């Protein structure tokens, strides 16, 4: 398979990151959102992210232009028929995702790989909404996509060997990231471990053991984390953390996955982290800590 044009469905935090990373690797990207307004917003966020890299000398003005020129804004699924692979990365809602896969199944030729960036949902269940479940696979990227060189490749029950091999090739040769193979299980490896760490940090905060700042410093300086667990939660989005924990709590039925009360409260209050300007810490429009 010659991977040249990739569809990315969903222009949220992960969709922006995946689209930007693929375009930076020289691929053409069709970015899909429900409305032109949301597309414009996603596109402007990608531009902001590139501007930040430009400021840090990571890319040049010409490279920024080139990357942006490779991202095409799309609102109709029909346009995805020309893609060599499609990556779905909408909200973690099983029904919504199933609908997307059903539509993709109709639009994309049967040999085209349909991947989901889900972190907790069942690939087998997603694939069940398609006629060709052998081409459905999980490709779980980690935020920030352009900087984290790891992808979990998740096999559903019916995912074919061919689909897996091609996906592994795509991840390792084209995006130059390390692909690890995981079998279907809520949270896989990365989400399961990191959300538990974040949840535990919130318990510590709630119990008054240490301040948010000090909890983060402890892990950042003590164990060489780039960001502490609470800032990490702000950057991932508190709603995403809550959704992942609730999903795992339900699936595994174990108390250790029960989301912290602090987390629930903050999500109810609409304090979702970087994207709303405030979570455990405060952030400016560019996502920098204030």
């Amino acid at each position, binding site marked *: 398979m*010659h991977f*040249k044009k990739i569809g990315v469905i969903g222009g949220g935090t992960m969709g922006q990151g995946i689209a930007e990373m693929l375009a930076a690797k*020289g691929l053409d990207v069709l970015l899909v959102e429900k409305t032109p307004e949301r597309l414009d917003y996603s596109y402007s966020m990608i531009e902001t992210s590139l501007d930040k*890299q430009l400021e*840090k*000398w*990571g*890319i*040049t003005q010409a490279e920024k232009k080139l990357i942006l020129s490779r991202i095409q804004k799309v609102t109709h699924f029909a346009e995805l028929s020309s893609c060599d692979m499609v990556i779905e990365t909408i909200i973690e809602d099983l029904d919504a995702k199933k609908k997307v896969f059903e539509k993709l199944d109709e639009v994309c030729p049967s040999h085209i790989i349909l991947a989901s960036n889900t972190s907790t949902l069942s690939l087998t269940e997603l694939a069940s909404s398609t006629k060709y479940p052998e081409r459905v696979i999980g490709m779980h990227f980690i935020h920030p996509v352009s*900087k984290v060189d790891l992808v979990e490749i998740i096999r559903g029950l019916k995912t074919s060997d061919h689909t897996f091999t091609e996906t592994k090739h795509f991840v390792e040769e084209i995006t130059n990231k390390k692909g690890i193979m995981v079998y279907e299980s809520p949270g896989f490896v990365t989400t399961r471990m990191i959300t538990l760490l974040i949840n535990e940090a919130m318990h510590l905060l709630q119990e008054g053991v240490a301040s948010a700042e000090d909890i983060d410093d402890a892990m950042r300086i003590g164990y060489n984390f780039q960001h502490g667990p609470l800032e990490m939660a702000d950057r991932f989005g508190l709603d995403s953390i809550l959704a992942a924990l609730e999903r795992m709590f339900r699936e595994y039925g174990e108390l250790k996955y029960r989301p912290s009360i602090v987390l629930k409260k903050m999500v109810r209050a609409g304090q979702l982290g970087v994207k709303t300007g405030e979570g455990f810490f405060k952030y400016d429009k560019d996502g920098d800590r204030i």
Partner: protein
Amino acid sequence: MNILVINAGSSSLKYQLYNMSDESVLAKGLVERIGMDSSILTHKPTGKQEVTEVSEILEHTTAIRKVLGMLTDAEHGVISTIHDIQAVGHRVVHGGESFKESALVNSEAKSEIRRLFDLAPLHNPASMMGIQAAETNMPGIPQVVVFDTAFHQTMPEKSYLYAIPRVLYNKYKVRRYGAHGTSHAYVSQAAAEFLNRPIEDLKIITCHIGNGASLTAVQGGKSVDTSMGMTPLEGLMMGTRSGDLDPAIVPYVMNKEELTVNEVNSMLNKHSGLLAISGVSSDMREITEGMEKGEPNSTLAFDMYEYRLRKYIGSYAAAMNGVDVIVFTAGVGENSIVLRQRVLEQLTYLGVELDEELNKIRSGDPRRISTANSKVEVLVIPTNEELVIARDTHRIVQASQLEK
């Protein structure tokens, strides 16, 4: 013998077709944007109209097929069939320590070039694609590889080693390799011919100053030192590259600005040099214009560039205990009158005497710009790397056919 010279980049491919009976260029051209729907092939047949074709060229094999199509085209072509091409010469950036001269392409040469991917991750894979593409399109036609580093393989240990733990050299071959070797070799040879003196008797400093810039100390026809290092970042200040700096700056800045390895690499290679100091441009012509208008940043950029170049000339004169010839070549070296003037008028201690009028002449021919009294001959010699590749290819293919 007709020889096709290929210089393959990751998304571009330059070519020239030589007729070696008189070393004339039959056609040259360029394929840009390989890998996209709208790739551009620009073909310039000698004595005919230039043609441009836009089409989808996804990889190098298709690119070379299109080039061969152009070369044999009824209207724009210069040969009737591809069998009129008797050999292909490729430019390869990195030959490591294994290639001390140009070589015939065979399976060992190819696997060695592959082993060197690590040292030239941006360039050697592209050259390899060019070689494979030529093999696919022209099976059985001999191919030769010509390396940018080969000329500098004569450097002694004292020039090429860095004063860091030897284990890094033993394990990873961290050392100075230099670059622009084909150009330095060509202009030093051409200088000796121009002066009609045996190159074995000469101490020559060659200044290849283009977008990338390097100096070489050529003693007795051999490279004994060169300013680029393990990568093309070391040495002179360049358009967007920093050149020499205190290596401790790298971890210091990485820490302060929280930069990744990629970011700091990109900063030093793409955001430094003339561009960083002038804040305007990486192009010497624009810097010169700015200086003439009295812009302080452009003036400073020019002064730094000139000062660093002059210091390197001084250090190579010291390295060889003297200098007989200084050669300027490549884009800036061949065309910037003011840069040459400012460097040379401050080398009087070496006995350099610039002829200001000769320096102002614009020409595509090799020429002298020093006075008759000057103790050092100063020459401007347009470089021609493609011709060197064609000549090496010609020589090596002929020798290999004699063996058979």
